[in-house]
């Protein structure tokens, strides 16, 4: 009748195959360590998308050549960067140069593995103070940024003209405009309220410009800001789906003309330009006219590992070259970032009017980790949860933020 394959043989074969795979992994994990004269440096970043991928490589090649070293670049997917850095840290083998997202820097700096850049002689002349702030941990500069980004309001020009609406400048105008622009399948307004850092990043300008802070999440100012968000979801001018939208998803909705206005970062400009949609960019609306805008500072910072005298010196030399004016401008233009040096940024605002709102926001932009340091990721997660609870759950903004406040360390 039915014959079954003898189970025994199969049971044996699987582990030996796994065993072989395991040995292979062990084999590749062992890498040669260099000694004597330093001829190569290592570098890690998450610029996997073109054109950033190619230009990062080209810039590193060029700066390596100037310093007389070869640079082995490792590009990881974004969510793999921190795990792979931590893995490196546990072997005491961090890459010489690391391009890290700025809210993650305190975590790496807290290990004590990073080189204090000012002591190492990195030149910070001409940089925005606010841009240097995102590279500091415990008042020491461990990371330096080539270019920064921030958030602004993007508006669909045709839709606003049809509805005879001007780009809003205050919260009240924003909520009226969103109402006006909501029609059928189109929502007036959108932002990312996804359950991690991106959602928090989008909420912070509203929290801060209303006078709230990351350490007092249950303050009336914070509750008012979150209430402002959830009211717009309630009245339908913002889709409830925003709780599952990343900033890229929000951009897709805007490109598909399903959303008339959105909060997003300057890095979306190349994507929008490519699609040929006509859009306007204006500073994020503030609670009352005359209030100061306060956007969180976005962008990556370069950090150098403490890998010993000669390697550190060479890495700093390469870094200095990466921060040269030409490289800064090229990098900023490719990414639609704001160059971290003031005079270069002003030049850029003149050349590209759509970048002007972002350049304007840089001097007052705040570092997300200034107050919380290495506790930031946990608090950021709690804020994202609170946002979701208020927008999609049954809780009020006050309850949700009261809950989030418990994750703020008391010290």
């Amino acid at each position, binding site marked *: 009748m039915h014959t079954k394959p003898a189970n025994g043989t199969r049971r044996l074969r699987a*582990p030996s195959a796994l065993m072989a795979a395991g040995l292979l992994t062990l084999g590749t994990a062992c890498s040669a360590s260099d000694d004597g004269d330093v001829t190569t440096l290592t570098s890690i970043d998450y610029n996997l998308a073109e054109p950033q991928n190619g230009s990062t490589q080209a810039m590193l090649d060029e700066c390596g050549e100037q310093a007389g070293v070869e640079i082995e670049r490792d590009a990881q997917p974004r969510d793999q960067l921190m795990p792979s850095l931590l893995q490196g840290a546990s072997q005491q083998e961090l890459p010489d140069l690391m391009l890290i997202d700025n809210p993650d820097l305190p*975590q790496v700096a807290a290990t004590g593995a990073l080189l204090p850049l000012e002591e190492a002689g990195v030149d910070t002349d001409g940089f925005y103070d606010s841009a240097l702030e995102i590279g500091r941990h415990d008042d020491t500069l461990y990371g330096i940024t080539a270019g920064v980004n921030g958030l602004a309001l993007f508006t669909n020009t045709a839709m606003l003209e049809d509805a005879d609406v001007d780009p809003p400048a205050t919260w009240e105008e924003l909520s009226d405009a969103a109402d006006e622009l909501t029609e059928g*399948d189109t929502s007036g307004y959108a932002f990312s309220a996804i*359950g991690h850092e991106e959602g928090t990043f989008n909420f912070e300008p509203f929290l801060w410009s209303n006078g709230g802070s990351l350490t007092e999440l249950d303050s009336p100012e914070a509750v008012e800001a979150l209430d402002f968000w959830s009211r717009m979801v309630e009245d339908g001018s913002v889709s409830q789906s925003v709780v599952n939208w990343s900033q890229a998803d929000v951009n897709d909705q805007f490109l598909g003309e399903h959303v008339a206005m959105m909060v997003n970062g300057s890095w979306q400009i190349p994507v929008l330009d490519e699609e040929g949609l006509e859009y306007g960019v204006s500073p994020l609306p503030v609670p009352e006219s005359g209030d100061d805008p306060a956007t969180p500072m976005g962008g990556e910072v370069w950090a150098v590992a403490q890998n010993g005298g000669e390697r550190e010196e060479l890495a700093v030399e390469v870094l200095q070259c990466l921060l040269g004016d030409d490289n800064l401008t090229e990098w900023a233009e490719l990414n639609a970032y704001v160059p971290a040096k003031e005079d270069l940024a002003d030049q850029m605002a003149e050349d590209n009017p759509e970048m002007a709102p972002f350049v304007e926001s840089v001097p007052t932009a705040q570092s997300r980790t200034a107050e919380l340091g290495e506790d930031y990721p946990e608090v950021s997660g709690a804020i994202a949860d609170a946002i979701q609870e208020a927008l*999609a*759950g049954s809780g009020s903004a006050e309850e949700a933020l009261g809950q989030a406040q418990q994750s703020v360390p008391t010290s």
Partner: protein
Amino acid sequence: MVARIGFVAPIVVYLVLFFGYPLVSNITMAMREFTAASFYTGEAPFVGFENYAAVIGDPVFGTALLNTAVFTIASLAFQFAIGLGLAVFFQRYFPLNGVLRSLLLLPWLLPLVVSGTVWRWIYDQEYGVLNQVLLGAGVIDTAMPWLSSTSMALTAVTVANIWVGIPFNMVILYGGLQGIPAQLYEAAALDGAGPWKRFSAVTWPLLRPVSAVVLMLGLVYTLKVFDVIMVLTQGGPANATQTLTTWSYSLSFQDLDFGAGAATGNMLILLALVFAVFYLRSTRQSAGAAAREAPRRRVPRLPRGRSATGGARASVAAAGEPSATEQERS
């Protein structure tokens, strides 16, 4: 003796290296305050069970535990019931049987990220096909926020996971059905048993061992489901779809609190272990019962750790009928 050790050594080395070591270090990590800095400095102060206390005291813990239970039980029940229904259905002979059966395997063959993304589109509030169909049919008046409401997201994610798991259940149960000798059905039919009686008296008892395997594997698989939830909702909105697995990941890799993440992971392992012990005991009992009930026919002695097929043979013997394998042997 030496040969015997040589034979066993590779698997022992493998288990110690890739199973024992991570497990032990996970247990020790959960008892330390292990942060990002610990990786570099190697300093992770011993805190005993503080991580466990912190995790259990966290309001998310209750939510995650309940979600894990609901998600697992609902997934298993529906996957098994639908899988069994389909397996029984495909036992009949009809044209295109084989083609259809292979097509039904598709969900199992697709990478989970792909299935997850497709389900995300289906569920989309504004443009998802599900809302369009329901609106068109007049079942609902307004588009439902399947994935963006805290009250509906868990159901939506569970349904997607059930869809993914049906083929696995169907294929294994179909295999089990094929192993039931046809003459049992003939005999039952001669005795005047109808379709339901044939199912409850022949199919179900003889399929029990295979069912136990399917459910056990399904349980372990469902407890650790990660990809589907990550793609659909990332545990949100507001932790509405957070399970112990996704929470453990987010504690470790988003909050970078590796001690707490490890503690959560260990509790998950413990949970799976409890069910595994139940399973082992139940197969041992049924094998023992078989040996008692059929003393004249010697049940072939199985080596330590009775395997699934061992259990099947034993309970076929318990039913007092010669099994396929035994017929071949005698």
